[in-house]
């Protein structure tokens, strides 16, 4: 079964880059420009296996999105990966403590994203990488 990924970033260009990487792994993708838009899509029925989340966004930032997702038992299996320029150690610890599984600092290479997904056992096809 194809796995689903939600790409949450206020930059269309960055969403496009991530979509090409994730889409190349055969994930079915959806996109949101901020955390609230992503929550709205999830509440409307899109059930992601993976969320790639920017930190600094208008309306709802990535950290708040993570805390909101982690309040909901029905979304406990969603893998959350921060993909952000925020690289201060305190921010990384804060995101991981809130429930993020992985943390990727921009700029990144496609290989860096793929390697992180492999570590998480996600391949896009529902088969452990």
């Amino acid at each position, binding site marked *: 079964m194809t796995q689903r990924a939600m790409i949450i970033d*206020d*930059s*269309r*260009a*960055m969403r*496009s*880059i991530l979509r*090409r990487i994730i889409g190349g792994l055969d994930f079915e993708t959806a996109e949101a420009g901020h955390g609230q838009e992503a929550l709205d899509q999830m509440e409307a029925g899109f059930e992601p296996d993976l969320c790639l989340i920017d930190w*600094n*966004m*208008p309306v709802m930032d990535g950290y708040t999105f993570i805390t909101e997702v982690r309040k909901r038992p029905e979304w406990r299996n969603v893998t959350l990966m921060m993909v*952000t*320029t*925020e*690289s*201060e150690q*305190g*921010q990384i610890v804060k995101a991981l403590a809130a429930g993020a599984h992985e943390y990727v*600092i*921009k*700029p*990144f*290479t496609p290989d860096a994203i793929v390697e992180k997904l492999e570590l998480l056992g996600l391949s896009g096809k529902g088969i452990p990488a």
Partner: protein
Amino acid sequence: MTLAPELTDVHAIVEQVWSSFLGDEEPLLPAYDADTAFPAENAWSSAVSIHGGWTGTVTIELSKNLAFSLTRLMMAMDESEPLDDAEVADAVGELVNMVGGNIKSLMPGPSALTLPVVAAGRAAHSSDLREVSRFDARWSGEPVRVSVHSPS
């Protein structure tokens, strides 16, 4: 004395951003004739501010040709596809977001990074800021300038 990021660090960050998202085929070449004023005509600019343990503004200025070229590359669009200003602003804003975020990590924290502000035209800075670091380069023959300003 104003605390400022090292020019070599700024250079390294910009190169990393460029090669990660625009590829290695066309190198970003430092421009050593950079004392000349950045060409104001057809320039685009973007800026993010950092507030907290260190305060400053990181700005990228680039030619319109370069802004459009890098937008097409980042969005995987070919030359025949129309490109609007919002798409260019988005791509140029994301570049300064990445450069600014990484410069923030070099400076005393904790600090917060603002969302990018993008303009068709050169960047303007308030009178209490002075330039503390500048990296000039050319990419595909087009000029790009990354500067860091901090309160004097």
